[in-house]
């Protein structure tokens, strides 16, 4: 009679198919990564390389080949207007990212609580995510422009005599219109990113801190904020990078010369003299360098913090 108890070595057999397929995951991984590698290396990498080459004077198809020369960079960097543009670009990008962040954190925290109308709120706050930037820009023109709804309303209620007297929000170098559009569009995105991180946070830590005597302020800065930092860092990184490179809002709502870097690049590309494209490429590469250095420094600082708090 055979024993009803299986021999001891029979149990691991269950796992053998997976072990036999030990070489397959590598192949599977390679297959999974191929499309993204293709996009990154060939399309993006190739374009990057070409942009750098052009900015250094390599464009035989335009009949220009002074490679390698820094002429275009020198022309750009020697102009004080270029540096004003850099400042302007950084100002719009930083201010709108910071404002959106300051709005998004309380919004995300509110989403974790139950209150009347929460369902509606949950739906409404995401609306701007679904509306394209250009529509947002058009709305800003309609609403904030000198002939816009706000100015007409102000004139109607008698705050000003004529809509034309309404303080300029658009087309100024303060960039209130640009910042408004960025903030309007990006606050929901940041809220969503921070909310996702908040869902993984043990909210008992906040209660524990309260019982230990921490004020609501101390709880926020010492317990909640450090725990939602991954969401803050990732979403602000993405928004800042986007704002650095975005061009339609500064073009339409900005104050004109001096423009932001992407608008400068666009003007060069659009010029009848197509050899100016090389100058445009130098602007694009400059923008890439500035943005890259800043984001790298930001990430490095965050990484140091993560190491300090033992997360990596």
């Amino acid at each position, binding site marked *: 009679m055979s024993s009803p108890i299986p021999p001891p070595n029979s149990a691991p057999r269950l796992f053998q198919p997976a072990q036999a397929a030990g070489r397959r995951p590598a192949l599977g991984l390679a297959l999974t990564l191929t499309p993204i590698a293709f996009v990154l290396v060939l399309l993006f990498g190739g374009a990057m390389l070409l942009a750098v080459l052009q900015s250094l004077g390599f464009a035989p198809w335009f009949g220009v080949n002074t490679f390698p020369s820094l002429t275009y960079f020198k022309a750009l960097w020697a102009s004080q207007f270029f540096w004003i543009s850099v400042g302007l670009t950084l100002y719009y990008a930083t201010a709108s990212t910071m404002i959106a962040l300051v709005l998004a954190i309380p919004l995300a925290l509110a989403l974790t609580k139950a209150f009347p109308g929460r369902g509606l709120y949950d739906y409404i706050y995401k609306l701007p995510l679904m509306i394209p930037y250009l529509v947002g820009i058009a709305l800003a023109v309609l609403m904030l422009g000198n002939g816009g709804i706000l100015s007409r309303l102000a004139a109607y209620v008698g705050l000003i005599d004529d809509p034309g007297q309404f303080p300029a929000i658009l087309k100024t170098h303060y960039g209130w219109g640009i910042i408004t559009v960025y903030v309007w569009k990006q606050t929901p995105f940041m809220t969503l990113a921070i909310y996702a991180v908040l869902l993984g946070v*043990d909210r008992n830590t906040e209660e524990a801190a309260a019982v230990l*005597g921490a004020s609501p302020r101390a709880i926020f800065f010492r317990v909640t904020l450090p725990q939602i930092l991954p969401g803050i860092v990732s979403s602000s990184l993405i928004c800042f990078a986007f704002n650095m490179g975005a061009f339609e809002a500064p073009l339409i709502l900005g104050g004109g010369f001096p423009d932001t870097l992407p608008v400068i690049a666009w003007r060069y590309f659009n010029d009848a003299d197509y050899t100016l494209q090389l100058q445009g490429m130098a602007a694009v590469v400059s923008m890439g360098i500035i943005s890259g250095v800043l984001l790298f420094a930001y990430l490095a600082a965050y990484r140091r913090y993560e190491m300090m708090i033992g997360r990596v």
Partner: protein
Amino acid sequence: MTKVHLSGVRKSFGSFTAIEHLELTIESGEFVVLLGPSGCGKTTMLRMIAGLEEPSAGSILLDGADVSNTPVQERNVGMVFQRAALFPHMTVEKNILFGLSVRGRPRGEMREKLEEMLEIVQLHDFRHRFPAQLSGGQMQRVAIARTLITEPSVLMMDEPLAGLDTKLRATMRRFIRDVQKRLRLTTIFVTHDQAEAMELADRIAVIFDGRLAQYAPPDLLYKRPSCMAVADFMGVSNIFPGTLVAKNRVESAFGQLRVDEQPRCPLGATVSLMLRAEAIDLHEHKEDTRFQAIEGRIVERDFLGASVVYTLECGATRIAVSEPSRRLLDVGRTVWLDIAPESVWLLSH
């Protein structure tokens, strides 16, 4: 050492009433366990004492002072949560020091107390670790140290051992009991595990559906449950219907049994007889019985290591008897059950 008093406390969430008019006093230095099934309201009680929930009615008094409207930060109570709730971005040291640091205590005092706490919870070697690098038991010890360092007037623990394995639970129970005795801290401990409650408590408050079913020392609760629900929750295996025919005699499926006088039950009352499995003696010969002998046949034997549980058939009724496993009686054999009058407890309906 603080006395805690809950006076007429009620708590509702919308239309759901979690706590129903609760009166409970916890003497200073006492270790009280709130015991009850999940969702019975014991955690809500704890959260109200801590100040994390506001009572819908009634008041909470700490040493006679009404703290019902005192914000959580100012109550000076301590709470250990089920999943430790350590701050994941702080080291063990920083976690423990948090309470003193938010109070802005001087550095020297903080250092001194930190060493004292690390000594109590025996975590010197782990002081620079982060919570993610600790085991479940170590995390709970940090949570306890983090709470104790603020010298709370009351220590509350919400199922702190729920996530730990059996062996670690036993060690942690001893540890918690030792610390509590050493510091003579008023302690309220929530659990749904009756064995845990028995081991730890000076008194156990059994809660069902937001009501206090019984509040008594463990031995009394075990031997003299106040109602069927408590008896059932405390794991009483033998409950039989009966009628009180004389003031110390009850008619049951085993015939008439002599019992201790039951002042709570009127004559002729229908009662439930409760017999603890380990309070019944088994004898191989009828002559050895001392009180009242009932014949039974062993139909099942469960060997549990230190003890052995027999299921006996006495006429049409089955009864469980447990005894030390020094001897083992065979299934099928006839034995004599000996039931002392004082080991029968009657529950009136």
